[in-house]
């Protein structure tokens, strides 16, 4: 039902090998840091893609769930817990908060849903800023240890203090995320998400519990976003309210829209390329956001499917053209 053509498989294999050897070609540690955070953003953007791109629900609290993950990991590791326990807990906490928010937010649709989730996002930001005893207020929490080493027989423990180790950790989580999303999206279960995006009333009339389905999509998305945030906190060694601010959501949104909504590679391409492009545009300083703001408008008007969606549309047009040709033949 959902098989991929051979050339796609070859390309994916090539990209995987390239990703494995990437650390050999990174010029300096500064650039390496950017590559690592870009991959983290790719994880979070991919999960935003599930709720926004595939399910059609514009959750503007997504950055807040990223931040929740970062804070939970920071608070727990500071209190002496192992990173490997704190990380899944951060995902569960975000899923729990998301469930609570969803109870309210999924009663609304469209713009209203976007506004309600945005409000919840800002509330979470304000909590991070004002609940000083727990979150450290404006200063945040700093001096975090890097991820707890994993003991490994014969080879000694795997440590996560070096950049290559962090890179492979993030790459592994990204691949796992893409694996999960791929399984979901290319299944009948995932088709119900797209059904809701396409026509919620019809989905309801065809026996799909739209509320529960949206909630599941939201839960998966929030869990993954928090995991990305949790890793972000250990790699930076600190967390501050900026990790939970609305700008994080807007950044993910820019990555997703420019890369290509509702396509798995689009989110990754956007999240990976744009921070690197931004780095090359360093000389433009504040003009960069001016540029990306305008670009967002241009893309959503003229290329609503983004960079990868554009490629896909061309491909689909070719398929549709072939289909209409063959059907004419069969009619004749």
């Amino acid at each position: 039902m959902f098989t991929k053509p051979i050339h796609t498989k070859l390309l994916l294999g090539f990209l995987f090998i390239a990703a494995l050897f990437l650390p050999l070609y990174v010029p300096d540690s500064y650039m390496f840091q950017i590559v690592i955070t870009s991959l983290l953003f790719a994880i979070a953007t991919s999960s935003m893609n599930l709720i926004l791109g595939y399910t059609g629900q514009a959750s503007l609290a997504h950055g807040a769930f990223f931040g929740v993950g970062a804070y939970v990991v920071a608070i727990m590791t500071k209190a002496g817990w192992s990173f490997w326990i704190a990380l899944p807990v951060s995902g569960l906490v975000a899923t729990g908060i998301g469930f609570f928010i969803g109870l309210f937010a999924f009663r609304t649709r469209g713009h209203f849903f976007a506004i309600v989730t945005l409000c919840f996002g800002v509330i979470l930001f304000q909590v991070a800023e004002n609940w000083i005893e727990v979150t450290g207020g404006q200063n945040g929490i700093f001096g975090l240890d890097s991820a707890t080493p994993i003991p490994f027989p014969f080879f000694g423990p795997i440590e996560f203090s070096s950049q290559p180790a962090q890179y492979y950790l993030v790459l592994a989580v990204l691949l796992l995320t893409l694996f999960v999303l791929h399984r979901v999206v290319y299944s009948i279960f995932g088709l119900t998400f797209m059904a809701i995006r396409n026509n919620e009333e019809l989905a309801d009339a065809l026996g799909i519990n739209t509320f529960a389905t949206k909630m599941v999509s939201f839960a998966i998305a929030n869990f993954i976003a928090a995991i990305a945030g949790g890793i972000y906190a250990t790699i930076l060694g600190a967390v501050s309210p900026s990790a939970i601010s609305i700008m994080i959501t807007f950044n993910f949104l820019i990555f997703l829209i420019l890369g290509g909504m509702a396509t798995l590679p689009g989110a990754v391409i956007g999240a990976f390329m744009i921070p690197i492009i931004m780095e090359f545009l360093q000389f433009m300083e504040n003009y960069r956001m001016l540029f990306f703001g305008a670009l967002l408008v241009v893309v959503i008007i003229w290329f609503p499917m983004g960079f990868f969606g554009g490629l896909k549309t061309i491909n689909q047009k070719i398929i549709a053209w072939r289909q209409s040709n063959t059907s004419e033949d069969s009619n004749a």
Partner: protein
Amino acid sequence: MELFLQQLFNGIMFGSTYAIVALGLTLVMGILHIPNFAHGHLYMLGGYITYFFITNLGFGYWYSLLLSMVILGFVGVVMERIVFRPLTGQPPINAFIAAIGALIFLESLALVIWGPQGMRIPNPHPQIIKMFGITMEAQRLLVVGGAAVLIVLLHLFLKKTTTGTTIEAVAQNREGAMLTGINVNRVSSMTFFISSATAAVAASFLSPIFILSPAMGAVLGMKAFIIVILGGMGSVPGAILGGYFLGLIEALGGGYISAEYKDVFAFGALILVLSIKPTGLFGKQEG
């Protein structure tokens, strides 16, 4: 009692600002059925334009206010034309994303021109007035009075002039208005002009009291949105009442419960109302 009166007055002052900004937004949302999420950022830009005329060019306060109004009105028209009009008929989520693009653009623009630090317009009316045991600057009184006058003028415009009644007709029933042969594009431009111009007035009133910063549009825009949703899209009385109501909730909640979480009260009220009535307090019933 004095604290209460002071908070009450502050609440009315903020409420006046909210009412004006929400009024502009409700017309735009009612007419175009698109969420102009950048409305708060237009307000911010209006404040900076007034600042520019007063500080850089040495114009008087009232001249600057008037110029800011006209200039921002045209900014609004341009925004409607290039950002929102191409998206009519597209999924609503696209217009929302475009609005976010526009607000990022406007905020960065202010950042590039004026920098991140706060700016203050010299207070044109710093006299202190004592009334009912509370003291206030004349400028604060001007905010309250000026807003009331502006609201009455807008109300008269919408009710008594042909242009105004057309706008309200489209705001309340776009499809019906199109059937009667109203040029919806022209009405859209006009509405954007009015809504942006009034936002500029609100910003010019308030910025001698509070500092201007590129980030100030975001929170105000969200609050205006909340008011519009609660008051009903396209409803003028809903926006006015909602504006004053929110101002009062915040001032009293901030004064008596917690100043840090002042903004949370507004968001909390919205979430509560929407979860009980998903189409807003006075929203049109679907189906």
